[in-house]
């Protein structure tokens, strides 16, 4: 069962579409990651999931139902920068949230220890480094023992050791406590190391969603045909994204086995002779840039046609 599901989620700000007809499913019990460049719509999507912003269209399902107040007892969240009261100590900041959640002092001590802030807990937050603030924000999100943790760029501002600690913590929370984690990130390495499930966002659109291993195979497939230029024109006319490759072959975006099978089948039906079809297995980085690059190319050619 999916812990989060969105249906046609759309949100615009003035004339900018931040999230565009997003259909997304986040599985339970794993670390999922929103991957996308700055401005891809990651934070807006998280805000929509948490009810901080209302969608123009579409809807969100949390824990298999409409988001109700009771759902938020099961969620811990950290959106953008942590919301911390600088004039209070780290412990007092946690206390302000703890009393609202009805948690105990022991819970407070537990999360302080979990994020490694025991020594600095009684210092004023105004003197905290960016990394310490991030840890305290994470501790606040962990306070109510949530089933779902939603974290917006959780390793922002952390030093390498801190980043590793947080990544280990997230994996441990999933493995040992069954907590589902959804993080947003623009760091490919982070997603590579932490995420089991990946959603690639670009310009508010979902370009890929599925297991991380599948993302490595996502994106391009090289196809050899007898008349490459004609085949490219035919594929573009039929809404496939195509780029010429070397020696009479084409790169085509076909991210799943069924999509590749359909590509082959349609080409043969259209009268082309297909002599090879191989999915590209490449690094996450190259897959990501292929996906977003293809998207940009397709969008700009559409715009040119419209103009």
């Amino acid at each position, binding site marked *: 069962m999916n812990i989060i599901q969105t249906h046609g989620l759309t949100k615009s700000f003035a004339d900018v579409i931040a999230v565009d007809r997003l259909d997304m499913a986040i599985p339970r019990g794993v670390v999922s990651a929103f991957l996308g460049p700055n401005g891809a719509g990651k934070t807006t999507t998280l805000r929509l999931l948490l009810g*901080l912003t209302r969608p123009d269209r579409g809807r969100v399902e949390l824990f298999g139902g409409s988001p109700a107040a009771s759902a938020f007892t099961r*969620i811990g969240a950290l959106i953008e920068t942590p919301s911390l009261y600088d004039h*209070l100590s780290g412990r007092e900041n946690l206390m302000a*949230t703890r009393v609202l*959640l*009805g948690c105990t002092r022991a819970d407070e001590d537990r999360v302080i220890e979990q994020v490694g802030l025991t020594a600095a807990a009684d210092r004023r937050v105004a003197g905290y480094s960016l990394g310490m603030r991030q840890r305290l924000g994470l501790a606040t999100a962990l306070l109510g023992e949530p089933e779902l943790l939603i974290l917006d760029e959780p390793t922002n501002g952390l030093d390498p050791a801190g980043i590793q600690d947080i990544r280990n913590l997230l994996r441990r929370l999933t493995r040992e406590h069954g907590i589902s984690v959804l993080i947003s990130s623009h760091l490919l390495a982070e997603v590579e190391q932490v995420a089991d499930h990946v959603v690639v966002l670009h310009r508010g659109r979902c370009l890929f969603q599925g297991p991380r291993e599948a993302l490595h195979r996502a994106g391009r497939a090289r196809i050899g045909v007898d008349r490459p230029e004609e085949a490219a024109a035919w594929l573009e006319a039929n809404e496939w994204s195509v780029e010429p490759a070397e020696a009479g072959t084409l790169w085509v975006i076909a991210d799943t086995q069924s999509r590749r099978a359909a590509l082959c089948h349609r080409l043969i039906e259209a009268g082309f002779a297909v002599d090879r079809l191989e999915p590209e297995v490449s690094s996450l980085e190259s897959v990501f840039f292929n996906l977003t690059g293809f998207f940009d190319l397709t969008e700009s050619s559409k715009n040119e046609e419209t103009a």
Partner: protein
Amino acid sequence: MTRVLRAEWIKLRRSGVWPVCVLTPYVIVLFFALFAYFDGERFLRPDRAWTWLIMSTLRFFAGVVLPLWVAAITAQVAAIEHRSRGFKHLFVLPVARWRLYLGKQIVGWGLCLVVMLGLAVALLVAGSILGWLRPELGFDAFPELAPLLVGAFGTTLASGFLIAIHTWVALVRSDLMTPIALGFVATISVVALGAFDADLVVFHPWAYPTQWVKSLDGTIELVWPLVGAATGALLAMVAGWSFVARDVET
């Protein structure tokens, strides 16, 4: 609701709110006490010395200081959330948003009561010191406490509309300028209106505390605390409804 208020109490620790609450009444009372100390024999009747000190201070406080103080203190309370971008954290917690809003309103009312009780204490302290330093002025006998406490509670209730509107504006606007400017404009307008038309000024919500304090010297008019509290509660409900339905931008 108790949890919300406990959280608010924690957030007020070491904030700038408490020094403002404690110092404001003492500064104002000191001004009137110095006036009495240096020039008291010219205008003070020994049998009315306490009445003069209490009523003059209360009138000035309710008419000029309190509206500006409410603007400043509600802005400061709201700034605790704005500076920390606290609403995006609070609004994803499993606590009804209206409770969080109501918590801010109650804090406004509570702080107003604290400052009014502080004013009452400051008046007693100042009068006692004057009685010791200048016994001839008539501050030797201690005044009755009950009317002073009634005055403090009544002024708080009569300020209900001010507290409600300033809390709302300060929570909606993240800049300090808007709520402070509203306080200035409204206070100047009520003072100006009072100078020109004493009949019309009673309809100005910022005049409710002054009208109440004025009545303390004659027949007590409970209508002002009641109107202040009722309009304040009504505005708080409408403003709260609009506040909880909006998107959280910060």
